[in-house]
């Protein structure tokens, strides 16, 4: 019947989609015919379709209008038209969250779900569960229990799946239905069995023992449903992962036995589970891979796809195992299904030798235009991984990438390519010029603002240091003329960097800046004016501070400080040093197969970890007047993982004080701890000022106590200190079941591990994108230099790693990566010393018998220099 309507609409010329130009208000107006008697099912059906279409298009319905439409719809329950009734169920589910008083249909749905009409029962259960909340659930509990064990599979499945949804909301009620679910799990219907198993698992998933019992039972008794088998395999592999048990456990045997199942789905699931297991030995892997290998030559495309996709994923982890399938993968290169062919080639690229790269690249470029974006991204990822493996191949790759960049493609795809080119540029200095040239060409015609600004930023950073910087100016200035505001602003910043770095370009840049000052956009004009004035001063220090290395403070912190400053007017000018520094996000070292495309843009405005601590500490009265929080360390464990009490410490550094935050967890369910304090005995001239106890520490609820320590004033170079820590508290025994404590308790103490304060706690990491400019800016007023011999270190890599972790400073200019086969290296480190002075370290390393290190330290403050040299020595 619907079809007929569609046809009519098509004829009236509304194009391929009859619902394209629906107006919400018009549809709601039409919905009034729901109130007419007698009901015209055909028309009502059509209007409900329109409403659901609008809802699914994301149209916003106000509560009042939604409620009105909903109540009108409830009248349709008087019709016995089957299609209309089922459409009502759909509407109820769609509107469950936007209309008020949806529980009005509870009785009507209950009637349908217990009625004789089987086509109504399943959908009625699903709709009912959507409108039911915890308080109402009790009322329908009886019906749900009956429905779970119903003879009709669709009813039983609906009830089970709906229960699964309700577990999130009212776990305790649904838990009472376990017996019914158990009964359903022995059903003959494959879907019912699968859904029942799902519900049982989710009811027990927090109880590892119960899960393993359940697994035991089902693996012994066997199941009928292949879906349920797949689920069991997933549960088993999750359990294996959690328990970190050896692979000789019965669970692993079960998964392995599934490799011999009759059903291909189960076999694949088992193989995939084994392949994805961490620390899998080659012997355990072999049967799984051989199954996948068999699938590679299956006549079914889905199986071939599944197999090659799994192999592709694990190619880097277990290259030797995958290499065994190379012959089968070679056959798949010419597969008529392009997705399979792409995955096969990228897998081969990951595992193959350097010599085969050219051949494979040629093969893939023959059909790259025919595959979807998603797979193109996979190709780009493979290329990116390949570049890291075979840096010498970068010219082949770069050519290929630039060709891909010219083709059509979506944002994700383009971003993957750009990220890949950027990472190649960073890895191989010799590829920089070609890479930048390709990117310049790309931004000439780039519709993605994000990518254009990213590339402009990169040009500003890298361009001035190339042999002929002038050729980039044209590309950048073209953007100022042609693009949107955001891109124009980024282009202005990039131009400024050229002007600051290259004296011979400065006059031309100034002329261009002058033109930018006429821009129609505020941000662009502001930037141009600012840079213009800075550049005209022609001072290296200014350039370094304001053009190369921007603000290093945390933006939310700056906002808060400025707000505070405007609230309390004072004579003193605003001091940037009082603003907490931005913590450099802990960038994970790019692993070998860094998935370039998945690297998300950092969420800029989310407050950092440190901002959260700052807020927490500021709310404690004793810690007011300490000034801004300078640095918070990573948590340090002061106990073993499996002890009675788990304590970890976070060190917060302030200008003259330190606050130690002890996060304690009581893992004994028969004890309540009160007045918990960690007593600290310093080894140096540190003075403990205050202890702030945690008032009470019930079972498994973490609590924090604090200690405030003053740093020694008279000897500013005494930065390291060892504290011996003891936790003291009042114990009250309590009933493990109720948590009701006894009336009286007794004092007790618990010795913790020693806590070290090192130089790294006094230095905050700051990234200086242009280290040499920063080096000049700080100047050599307090420069000191010393040479050390690191006897115990054998390689440059090791030495670099040690220095970075010891000083806790940020490596700049990618100097933390030591090129291969070199026996000397220069490491640049930047940081801010407690109190707000920049500290820069240049360490020249030479590899001889051990490693010899010449350290040069610069800072605006002599103490900082001394502290660093003293601590290194």
């Amino acid at each position: 019947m619907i079809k007929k309507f569609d046809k009519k609409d098509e004829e009236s010329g509304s194009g391929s989609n009859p619902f394209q130009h629906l107006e919400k208000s018009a549809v709601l107006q039409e919905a009034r015919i729901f109130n007419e008697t007698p009901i015209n099912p055909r028309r009502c059906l059509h209007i409900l379709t329109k409403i659901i279409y609008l809802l699914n298009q994301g149209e916003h319905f106000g509560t009042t209008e939604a409620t009105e439409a909903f109540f009108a719809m409830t009248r349709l329950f008087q019709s016995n038209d089957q299609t209309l009734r089922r459409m009502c169920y759909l509407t109820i589910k769609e509107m469950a969250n936007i209309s008020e008083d949806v529980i009005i249909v509870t009785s009507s749905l209950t009637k349908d779900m217990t009625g004789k009409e089987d086509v109504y029962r399943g959908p009625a259960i699903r709709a009912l569960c959507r409108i039911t909340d915890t308080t109402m659930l009790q009322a329908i509990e009886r019906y749900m229990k009956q429905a779970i064990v119903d003879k009709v599979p669709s009813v039983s499945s609906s009830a089970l799946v709906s229960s699964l949804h309700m577990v999130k909301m009212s776990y305790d009620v649904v838990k009472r239905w376990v017996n019914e679910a158990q009964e359903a799990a022995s059903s003959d219907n494959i879907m019912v069995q699968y859904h029942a198993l799902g519900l049982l698992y989710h009811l027990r998933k927090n109880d590892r023992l119960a899960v393993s019992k359940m697994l035991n039972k089902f693996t012994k008794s066997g199941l009928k449903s292949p879906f349920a088998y797949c689920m069991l395999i997933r549960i088993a592999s999750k359990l294996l992962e959690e328990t970190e048990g050896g692979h000789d456990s019965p669970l692993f045997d079960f998964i392995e036995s599934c490799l011999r199942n009759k059903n291909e789905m189960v076999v694949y699931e088992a193989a995939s589970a084994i392949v994805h297991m961490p620390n899998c030995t080659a012997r355990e892997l072999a049967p799984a891979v051989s199954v996948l290998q068999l699938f590679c030559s299956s006549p079914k495309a889905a199986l071939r796809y599944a197999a090659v996709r799994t192999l592709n994923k694990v190619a880097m982890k277990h290259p030797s195992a995958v290499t065994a399938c190379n012959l089968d993968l070679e056959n798949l290169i010419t597969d008529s299904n392009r997705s399979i062919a792409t995955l096969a080639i990228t897998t081969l690229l990951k595992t193959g030798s350097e010599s085969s790269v050219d051949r494979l690249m040629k093969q893939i470029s023959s059909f790259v235009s025919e595959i979807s974006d998603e797979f193109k991204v996979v190709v780009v990822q493979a290329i990116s991984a390949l570049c890291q493996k075979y840096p010498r191949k970068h010219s082949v790759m770069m050519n290929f990438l630039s060709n891909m960049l010219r083709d059509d493609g979506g944002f994700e795809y383009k971003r993957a390519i750009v990220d890949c080119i950027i990472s190649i540029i960073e890895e191989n200095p010799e590829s920089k010029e070609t890479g930048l040239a390709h990117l310049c060409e790309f931004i000439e015609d780039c519709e993605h603002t994000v990518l254009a600004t990213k590339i402009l930023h990169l040009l500003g950073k890298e361009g001035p240091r190339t042999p002929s910087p002038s050729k980039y100016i044209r590309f950048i200035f073209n953007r100022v003329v042609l693009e949107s505001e955001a891109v124009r602003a980024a282009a202005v910043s990039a131009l400024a960097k050229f002007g600051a770095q290259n004296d011979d370009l400065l006059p031309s840049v100034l002329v261009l800046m002058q033109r930018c000052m006429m821009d129609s956009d505020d941000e662009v004009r502001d930037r141009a004016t600012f840079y213009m004035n800075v550049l005209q001063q022609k001072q290296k220090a200014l350039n370094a501070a304001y053009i190369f290395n921007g603000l290093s403070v945390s933006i939310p912190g700056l906002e808060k400080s400025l707000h505070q400053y405007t609230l309390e007017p004072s004579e003193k000018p605003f001091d940037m040093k009082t603003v907490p520094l931005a913590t450099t996000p802990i960038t994970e070292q790019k692993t070998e197969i860094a998935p370039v495309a998945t690297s998300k843009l950092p969420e800029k405005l989310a407050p950092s970890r440190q901002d959260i601590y700052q807020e927490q500490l500021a709310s404690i009265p004793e810690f007011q007047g300490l000034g801004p929080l300078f640095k918070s360390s990573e948590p340090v464990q002061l106990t073993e993982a499996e002890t009675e009490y788990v304590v970890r410490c976070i060190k917060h550094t302030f200008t003259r004080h330190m606050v130690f935050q002890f996060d304690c967890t009581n893992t004994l369910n028969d004890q309540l701890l009160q007045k918990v304090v960690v007593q600290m005995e310093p080894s140096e001239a540190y003075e403990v000022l205050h202890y702030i106890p945690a008032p009470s520490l019930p079972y498994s609820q973490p609590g924090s106590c604090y200690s405030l320590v003053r740093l020694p004033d008279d000897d500013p170079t005494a930065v390291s200190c060892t504290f011996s820590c003891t936790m003291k508290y009042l114990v009250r025994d309590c009933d493990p079941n109720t948590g009701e404590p006894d009336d009286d308790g007794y004092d007790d103490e618990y010795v913790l591990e020693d806590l070290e304060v090192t130089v790294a706690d006094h230095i905050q990491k700051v990234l200086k994108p242009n280290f040499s400019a920063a080096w000049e800016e700080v100047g050599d007023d307090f420069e000191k230099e010393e040479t050390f011999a690191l006897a115990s270190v054998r390689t440059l890599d090791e030495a670099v790693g040690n220095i970075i972790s010891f000083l806790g400073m940020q490596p700049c200019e990618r100097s933390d990566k030591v090129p291969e086969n070199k026996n000397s290296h220069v490491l640049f480190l930047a940081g801010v010393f407690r109190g707000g002075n920049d500290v820069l370290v240049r360490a020249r390393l030479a590899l001889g018998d051990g490693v010899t290190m010449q350290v040069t330290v610069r800072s605006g403050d002599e103490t900082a220099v001394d502290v660093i040299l003293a601590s290194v020595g």
Partner: protein
Amino acid sequence: MGLLDKLSGWLGLRKKEVNILCLGLDNSGKTTIINQLKPANTQAQEIVPTIGFNIEKFKSSSLSFTVFDMSGQSRYRNLWEHYYKESQAIIFVIDSGDKLRMVVAKEELDTLLSHQDIRSRRMPVLFFANKTDLQDAMSSVKVSQLLCLENIKDKPWHICASNAIKGEGLQEGVDWLQGRLSFIYGGLFAYTYTLI
């Protein structure tokens, strides 16, 4: 509706459909009454408190009734009004054994009758003084006094004593309702038809 339909409706050949609201406090017996009126083969065996509403259908000699059997629990009573506009008559059920909540019933009735969708319409209201089998049940006269039914001037109304479990008194009420509705909607012809 086509001319033929109209004609057959006029001649009483096809039964005219009417929408009825069944209201009243919780536990007054609304669902039980409606259940009794349904054809014997579709009657439910057990009656549970209604949440929201149920739609039921039954036929009398000349009319086909579609009844919206509303939930009487206090927190759902404010949902009644969504269904006022499209109903042609109201059945109001009172538990005649529940003296204590008679005032509550009166209050709900007054709110109902003064609602803007009801106030100006001459829609028939049928009262069932239900549960007459109870020992301390009041008579229908007493109930109508307590509810001040004599003050209802602008609507035809009628009160019946009933025992929904046995089905006593229900037919009398439905016959009255049919008479009034036929009078209003079916025209004189159908009215006389029912009289014969």
